[in-house]
């Protein structure tokens, strides 16, 4: 427990001082957004036991909503983010209601198919800019006071949101609600026989996960200043699975590590090997499934002797 505390303190210190260490702030913010996205996904897979293959639908729908409201309607930053999260929660509720009727691989396939539906809507709807997406999204200011134009200010804003979300997820998992969720994951019939309305629990965690994924998407749209179809693509759903799996699903910090690894890999490898990066990611995926199912953090935790 002590080691974990020290680790978190170091992580905090690093996160706070990172912009002064010469690391490109946009890269850091992108990393944080994807880390948040992976944490949202992990809440569903690691703690709820449901593998969604359609999280890009939530990430993307929120990103599009925020970008569209800010560019075409001049909404403020905070209301636009809130609207984005709201839309992803609604999309999550609709997809969740349908998907939780099935289990395991069927659940994965249903979420995949419904996310594809969202993709086609984003492709053809009149306000999404089709293949071009939405460009030149301004960052605006928080409550009209704090301008987010500077990368450094934006970084700390994103970091603050990320920290809040991270704590929220810990809180959810350790709450009675989280315990029931764990019971459902481990043994569904037993949870039913104990009198829990499991569909309500599953739907709630699905909507929560979708909303947090949406928050990550909205922030990403503001950080990078654009939203494109690649945000809603199934490859994006696949990436978040890889991040979670690589870092360690069911651990708190695993998705963050996984997101950092994958985003770094993409950022630096694509300069060297170009399009082969997809192939490399695919190979990492296969290696993960075959040899490394607990992920980096999971394997490390397993090394430590249990008290």
């Amino acid at each position, binding site marked *: 427990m002590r080691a974990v505390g020290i680790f978190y303190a170091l992580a905090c210190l690093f996160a706070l001082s990172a912009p002064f260490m010469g690391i490109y702030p946009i890269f850091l913010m992108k990393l944080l957004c994807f880390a948040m996205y992976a944490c949202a996904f992990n809440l569903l897979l690691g703690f709820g036991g449901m593998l969604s293959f359609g999280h890009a639908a939530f990430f993307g729908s929120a990103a599009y909503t925020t970008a569209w409201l800010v560019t075409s309607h001049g909404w403020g930053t905070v209301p636009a983010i809130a609207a984005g999260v709201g839309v992803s929660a609604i999309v999550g509720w609709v997809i969740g209601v349908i998907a939780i009727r099935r289990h395991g691989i069927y659940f994965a396939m249903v979420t995949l198919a419904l996310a*594809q*539906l969202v993709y086609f809507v984003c492709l053809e709807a009149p306000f999404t800019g089709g293949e071009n997406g939405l460009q030149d999204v301004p960052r605006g200011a928080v409550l009209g006071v704090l301008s987010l134009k500077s990368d450094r200010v934006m970084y700390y804003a994103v970091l603050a949101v990320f920290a809040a979300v991270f704590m929220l997820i810990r809180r959810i998992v350790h709450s009675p609600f989280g315990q029931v969720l764990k019971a459902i994951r481990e043994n569904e019939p037993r949870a039913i026989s104990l009198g829990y309305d499991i569909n309500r629990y599953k739907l709630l965690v699905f909507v929560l996960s979708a909303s947090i994924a949406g928050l990550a998407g909205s922030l990403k749209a503001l950080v990078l200043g654009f939203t494109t179809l690649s945000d809603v693509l*199934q490859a994006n759903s*696949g990436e978040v699975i890889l991040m979670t799996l690589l870092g360690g699903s069911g651990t708190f910090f695993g998705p963050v590590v996984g997101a950092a690894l994958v985003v770094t890999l993409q950022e630096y490898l694509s300069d060297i090997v170009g399009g082969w990066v997809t192939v490399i990611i695919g190979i*990492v995926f*296969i290696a993960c*499934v075959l040899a490394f199912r607990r992920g980096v953090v999971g394997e490390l935790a397993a090394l430590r002797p249990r008290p």
Partner: protein
Amino acid sequence: MLGLVNGAFYAMLSLGLAVIFGLMGVVNFAHGAFYALGAFAALVGLQWFGVNYWAALVLAPLAVGLLGVITERLLLRHVYKLNPLYGLLLTFGLAQVVEGTLNESFASSGQSYPVPTALQGALNLGFMILPIYRAWVILASLTICLGTWFLIERTRLGSTLRAATENAPLLQAFGVNVPLLMALTYGGGVALAALAGVLAAPVIQVTPNMGSSLVTVVFAVVVIGGMGSILGSVVSGLALGVIEGLTKVVYPEASNIVVFVIMALVLMLRPAGLFGRE
């Protein structure tokens, strides 16, 4: 009519998926990638080695099937004992590897495969004009689907296969080489996908990503039909192709999503799928 052609491809792909899932419990995400691989094998064969369409129809599925057998032996067999989700994830990674490689080797722009001379032209049926090649695709894939159904339901090999689906360890105790059977099934399933790819090559643009967009539709088809059911996957594949084609005529904007909407409706009314059992 175009709908029926698409339906024929859906039927062939979901048939392969259903057979692989039935025996191995693996949802083959790489199915679309193998479909694209089949089309590219035909294309490369034609451009580099002068292999004609008819030979490609046999050689491409054989080559891809062989690759499938190797994949099964090297990778897939390690995940049978795990949660079936790992099979899905593994084949997803595999699909990325195959598609990424195709993308880098052939560029992502589309290429077209010429229609073989014997099947050029069109038939005038009086009420409509039917290109001969489309008629051939429908005929060929229906024959293949029927043939596969016959193989599985009416032959000795098929009964062994079905027995392995029911209880693999018991069958192995009777002296049947189950691992070999599984490798061959996976090879056969992806060979079917490759065959669909070769058949599709002359009617569509051959691109590295032609499979990944299709595979989601096929997944939806399989969910609608019910996963284990072979007949169900063929019937719902054809039917959904036709429905999609009709939507294209009536309300083109919705043609891409109609399959997914139907899937949602089916799940609300019959969670196990139309032909499936829970």
